[in-house]
């Protein structure tokens, strides 16, 4: 009896094998999906818990609602700003003002930092002469320059642009300088042998290979540009999110301060996203995964 059954069982086994494989692949994919969903769920839960705790403690007066406000009030504040505008004008205008100052300061700071960084990286004499001065300037806490810029350039956007520029310049400069210094010497030698002039070497070898260094600093420095603009506005301005913060503070409106912070975070994240997209386009030549 059993000898008859055995082969059949074996056949059945081999038959199921390929099906088994696809099954396994499916379960694996499923497990991966489930994990992703789990992470997302816990994330949301964590947010809800923190906000809920904040709201609850504040409503129960365990923490002072006047000083700490609560999420619902912050949301109300954002809603009011969006629907009815702020005391300074529409919310969009404030965001645009701050963004404009930050962007302009960022572009100027990046341009200056890259140009000077590459120049000093390539021209040794310049690096030796200017090196100590740049170190001294870098050691000044640059936020304290904001009041000085206010005196120099007035309440308008230019004083905020200036503080954004000084904050952005240094990290970009140092990265560009390092990038220009660390260019593969083989590549430079090769370019020279192939017939490149000094100018060509700078433009077509040094700058492309320094771009990955420069891009690292761009991410950080856009944050700095926003900080520069906000601090400048906070100290004295006619428009902008920083002014919104300081006005909310002056009218003891804690919810307003938090609401402005939330708006800023959203703006910064959006800018970061745009930068990442640009980076992906520029670094098509890089092997995937090497840029992390």
């Amino acid at each position: 009896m059993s000898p008859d059954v055995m082969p059949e069982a074996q056949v059945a086994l081999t038959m199921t094998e390929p099906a088994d494989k696809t099954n396994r692949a499916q379960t694996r994919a499923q497990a991966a999906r489930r994990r992703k969903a789990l992470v997302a769920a816990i994330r949301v839960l964590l947010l809800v818990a923190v906000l809920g705790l904040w709201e609850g403690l504040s409503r129960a007066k365990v923490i002072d609602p006047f000083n700490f406000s609560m999420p619902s009030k912050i949301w109300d504040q954002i809603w009011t700003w969006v629907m009815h505008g702020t005391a300074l004008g529409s919310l969009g205008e404030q965001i645009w003002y701050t963004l404009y100052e930050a962007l302009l300061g960022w572009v100027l700071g990046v341009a200056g930092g890259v140009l000077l960084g590459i120049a000093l990286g390539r021209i040794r004499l310049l690096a030796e002469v200017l090196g100590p001065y740049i170190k001294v300037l870098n050691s000044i806490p640059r936020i304290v320059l904001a009041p000085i810029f206010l005196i120099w350039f007035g309440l308008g956007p230019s004083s905020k642009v200036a503080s954004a520029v000084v904050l952005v310049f240094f990290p970009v400069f140092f990265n560009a300088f390092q990038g220009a210094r660390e260019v593969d010497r083989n590549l430079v030698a090769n370019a020279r042998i192939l017939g490149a002039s000094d100018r060509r070497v700078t433009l077509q070898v040094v700058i492309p290979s320094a771009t990955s260094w420069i891009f690292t600093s761009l991410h950080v420095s856009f944050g700095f540009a926003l900080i520069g603009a906000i601090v400048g506005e906070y100290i004295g301005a006619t428009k902008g999110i920083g002014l919104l913060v300081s006005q909310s503070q002056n009218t003891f409106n804690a919810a307003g301060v938090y609401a402005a912070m939330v708006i800023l975070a959203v703006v910064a994240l959006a800018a970061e996203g745009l930068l990442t997209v640009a980076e992906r386009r520029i670094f098509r030549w890089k092997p995937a995964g090497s840029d992390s």
Partner: protein
Amino acid sequence: MSADTSPAIELRGATKTFRTPSGGRHTAVRGLDLTVERGEFVAVVGPTGCGKSTTLTLVSGLEEPTEGEVLVAGEPVDGVGDKVGFVFQQDATFPWRTVLSNVMAGPRFRGLPKAEAKEKAREWLARVGLAAFEDRYPHQLSGGQRKRVALAATFVNDPEILLMDEPFSALDVQTRALMSDELLELWEGTGASVVFVTHDLEESIALADKVVVMTAGPATVKQVFEIDLPRPRKVESVRLEPRFIEIYREIWESLGEEVRITRERGAAHVA
């Protein structure tokens, strides 16, 4: 006039001393005399780290000799000239340029219009068998393919003098033999003079008309051997010929001694 009859490369008592980071002096090459005739394939062998590569940088004009003279086509070398091509040991393809753009780099640097440069580059890419890869970036190629790009990028400039610094040392054995054959094929059409630096004696005999044995560093010429194997050669099969083995034995007697000296020095260093 004299330029037409003068040898392709002449080193006369060339010495190169480098300053080490610790402030000392290191002599890489001392009193080097070497002549390479036009259209000649010269291989330079010597123990590792003896200063072979320095010889090439002197000829290329990337470095100047501390003492002595370096002449290319009868003229003293003054900076990087347009007669020279250089294939480096490490990868020197531009990673941000596509394969085609890499090969176009030389002609473009030398002021050729874009369309013409593209045409020449395509021609050389076809010759190294990479026509289908022109849109790839170097990181998408294998090591052997990247070396082919480097060869095409060098040959596209029509160099009269081809300097090669252990160009195939990073490749696996099979790819290496294949690349050596391809190099010979490419070279035979051009009439360029070649200086090929290697520490692999077999490779040097299979490729060259003349093998120059260098002393342990500071490098100077110890002995020069003429290689009378007939061309065209196939690297894999020429290795098995009795004459090849004879020549190998002869040169190794000279080279082996220098290798031993280098090794003993290394041992003394460790001790």
